[in-house]
């Protein structure tokens, strides 16, 4: 399992698949690519395409 982290290029929030986004209804263990297309950054509201793989 890849478990790659993705960073919001607008506000710097890091999506960590191990934690998911419980407030946004995303269970721990959800890969970034499996997030719904209408999922948005829980901090600044940026869309999924504004995220880049950490590294």
């Amino acid at each position, binding site marked *: 399992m890849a478990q790659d982290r993705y960073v919001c290029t*607008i*506000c*710097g929030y890091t999506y960590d698949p191990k934690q998911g986004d419980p*407030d946004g209804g995303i269970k721990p263990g959800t890969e970034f690519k499996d997030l719904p297309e209408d999922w948005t950054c829980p*901090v*600044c509201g940026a869309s999924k395409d504004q995220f880049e793989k950490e590294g």
Partner: protein
Amino acid sequence: MRPVEIKKDIFWVGAVDWSTIDFHGYSLARKGTTYNAYLVKDEKITLFDTVKAPFCEEFIETIAQVVDPAKIDYIVANHLEPDHAGCLARLVELVKPEKIFVSPMGKRSLEAHFHPQGWPVEEMKTGSTLSLGKRTVTFIETRMLHWPDSMSSYLAEDKLLITNDAFGQNLATTERFADEIDRSKLRAAMSAYYGNIVLPYSSVVEKTLAAIQGMNLDIDMLAPDHGLIFRGEADVRYAIETYLEFAAQKPKNRALVVYDTMWHSTEKMAFAVVDGLMDEGVSARAMHLKSFHQSDVMTELMYCGALAVGSPTLNNGILPGIAGLLTYMKGLRPQNKVAAAFGSFGWSGECVNILKNLLTDMNFEVVEPQVKVKHVPDKDVLAQCVELGRTLGRALKAKL
């Protein structure tokens, strides 16, 4: 305006806006505000931030009381919003600075605001340093406090952190330091600013303050870009602790009953809800939305763990003022609140369901049952409203 030397060779050179009450088009700054800018006299004369555009010429005159503005070498723009960068283009033209320093997100913001041609812009990431001669500036990105571009500048030799909008307050005063005014007025202004601007980024406040504490910076002055400066270790600690308290949004034993009304039925219901809250020993305040601005409501909500919202049904919807308030409130993402809904109607009565859905959508814990009444509440309906207030009060106390 008179410049004020806040540290040896560091001057407040901002503008006092005594009369602009409409703050940025969405909130009210009832006591005016200041746009703080700071000028450092060193081998490289450096200006931190500017002021809002209408104050440009006054600002340049204030700087001129310290140094000839043309001698400024560097400009730091900690945040590109026009109340702080409103004179940047004018200054660049006048000063022809050797460099303009911004955060990486600030570079994007600067380009989108000014579409500059050939400005000597340099990006400073967190931890980047800049020597001014006798002193060194360390830059700290503070993204989402409260824009992506936001940045703070730390002057280690002076133990000074220029924090941009963080720790700001809308207060137009001749005083420049927080210890020169009444503490309760200061706290009220801090909470109004936080509740209307910083609140949605409370989790970022906690993380950023923890990260700054982790950097072990020696700070004895916090200089925000609005309002008063916190000087001395005790006041620095006060400002940080106040922000951590605001960010935690721990529920308080106080309720806000906000409503709008057409023929006073929803208003009568609101007062009955207040009675119910009183019965449970909960301090409450009723606010008729036509008498208060949405930003006053958000400031009041900072002190409350419970919210009751009342609106009559108008043409199968809720009153537009309440809809606007709840849109504004949703964006500010208040946390840890219990809520209730009530309202009168003429024939269809959608109001309470719409209110319930909007409040639930904001993650408020909404108590049941909502109360609605056709046309005018009688004794029984008002008793149901009192009971709603009691239920809300008990739900709040269970969270304290």
